[in-house]
């Protein structure tokens, strides 16, 4: 809707509120760095040494990354069939979309609380299995990595469904028809047309879910308990329990670096996958 007019200075003021919000955001990032790298008025790597020199913290990073990779792959794999169903359900798509959107937008805390009721030692699942006589002692489904993976995967599947569905909906119908007319089987059509063309949605999901996982606090804290530490829960403790802002900031920067490096790796994989497409 560019009308080709030159803006006046007064009109440029319309940008100001957005610039203030963005300015605040970037200021907060700068403050994060200055908190982490400055000690007693000078540049210091003290807080990073405190973190990186401890083997038990290496385990925390390792667990966070590994869990996030597992969750991202699992969520995308489970979301794909759902996206296919929504893609083909032309008439009821809006209704089904609401079934996906509600769990996506309902607060993280509420969904995690649902999993606590389900998976807890005295939870629904254990009560049910005990009642049917399948088990005698409650299964340990929570306060371990299983709980974190189940919780995070469930929390993040809806996003993957929406993102993959968006990709599927942009596929031209002619392509599929052509493939069918030329004699390709259902599986061949899926493998050569549908799957490759939905890859952008798959990679977007992997990226967003991975990022949401490494930065998660609530789900790991509630479903993982205090022993299964996550980078997010560690950050939460530094701020809320030990009030060590500098160390929390250093943790946050490690987390940022970690996500950035992972994103670059993922982008390289994506480029490879999409190149082999012609």
């Amino acid at each position, binding site marked *: 809707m560019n009308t080709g007019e030159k803006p006046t200075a007064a009109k440029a003021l319309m*940008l100001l509120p957005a610039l203030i919000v963005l300015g605040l955001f970037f200021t907060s990032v700068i403050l994060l760095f200055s908190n982490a790298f400055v000690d007693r008025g000078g540049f210091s790597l003290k807080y990073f040494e405190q973190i990186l020199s401890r083997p038990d913290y290496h385990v925390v990073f390792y667990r966070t990354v590994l869990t996030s990779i597992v969750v991202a792959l699992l969520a995308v794999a489970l979301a794909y069939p759902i996206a296919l169903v929504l893609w083909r359900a032309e008439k009821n798509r809006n209704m089904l979309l609401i079934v996906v959107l509600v769990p996506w937008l309902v607060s993280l805390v509420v969904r995690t609380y649902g999993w606590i009721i389900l998976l807890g030692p005295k939870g629904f699942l254990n009560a049910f299995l005990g009642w049917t006589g399948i088990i005698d002692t409650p299964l340990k489904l929570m306060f371990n990595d299983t709980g974190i993976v189940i919780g995070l995967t469930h929390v993040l599947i809806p996003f993957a469904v929406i993102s993959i569905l968006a990709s599927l909906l942009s596929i031209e119908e002619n392509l599929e028809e052509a493939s069918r007319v030329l004699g390709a089987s259902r599986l061949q059509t899926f493998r050569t047309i549908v799957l490759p063309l939905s890859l952008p949605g798959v990679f977007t999901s992997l990226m967003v879910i991975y990022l949401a996982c490494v930065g998660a606090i609530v789900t790991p804290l509630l479903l993982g308990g205090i022993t299964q530490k996550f980078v997010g829960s560690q950050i939460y403790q530094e701020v809320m329990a030990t009030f060590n802002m500098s160390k929390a900031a250093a943790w946050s920067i490690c987390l940022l670096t970690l996500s950035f490096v992972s994103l670059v790796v993922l982008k390289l994989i994506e480029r490879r996958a999409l190149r082999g497409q012609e």
Partner: protein
Amino acid sequence: MRKLTPMTRAAGILLLLMLPAPIVIVFGASFNGTGYIQFPPESLSLRWYVEAFTDPRWGRAVLTSLWIAAVTATLITAISFLAAYFTLRYAPRISSWLELAIFSPLFFPHASMGVAAVALMAGMGIVGTPWAIILAHLMVTIPFSYRPIHVALKSVDPDLIRAAEVMGASEMRALWDIVLPICRSGILTSLLFTGIISFDEVTVTMFLIGPDITTLPVQIFTFIQDDASPVLAAISTLSVVITFIAILVLERVAGLSFFVQRQSG
């Protein structure tokens, strides 16, 4: 592939039904008469709802979350509209730069964003006030507000604006009578979507609460850690109902097509 194989279809539908499962469980638990979860449930009662409604802490948290969501959604929608309108109409060349800046918070893990937000708000001396929460929510929601508005504004034909202005309409008049009505669904999507995000945000918000102020999700989080009384199931159900209503309104007034549009341009 006009039709899915029955296997794929069954798997997809089964998985789809799993998505709301924990929410349904919370709903069921909220009507449980006994103080703990059991199967099969023994008695039905509304006592947890009575408890939730008589405890003033919950009422306060619900109201706080609602008004913060309303203020956040209104402000960020206005902010995004002004910015998108200005760049698209007068400075299309800076458009991609502005988008890059606006979408950059999306690449930030929320835990890092929370710490950065505390550092900023502590520097401004406003931690524990509603303003800290609102400012943080503006930063969290700006990409989700800008996107639908930008898409809607892009579809406005510049000739319509020119025609109006040639006929003597002021810029305000053209905005009000032409641009806004065309962008109606984009603006409504932004309002409701960011309102829902703000209402349910917890990871960044929990760093910014204080003794005088807390939001509903953060208070639920605090209570789960202390003791998981079933009153939480009742209050969680209430929070689900509010979000659900907002989504239904969104579907009614603007449709859901925004969510499944391939991001282009």
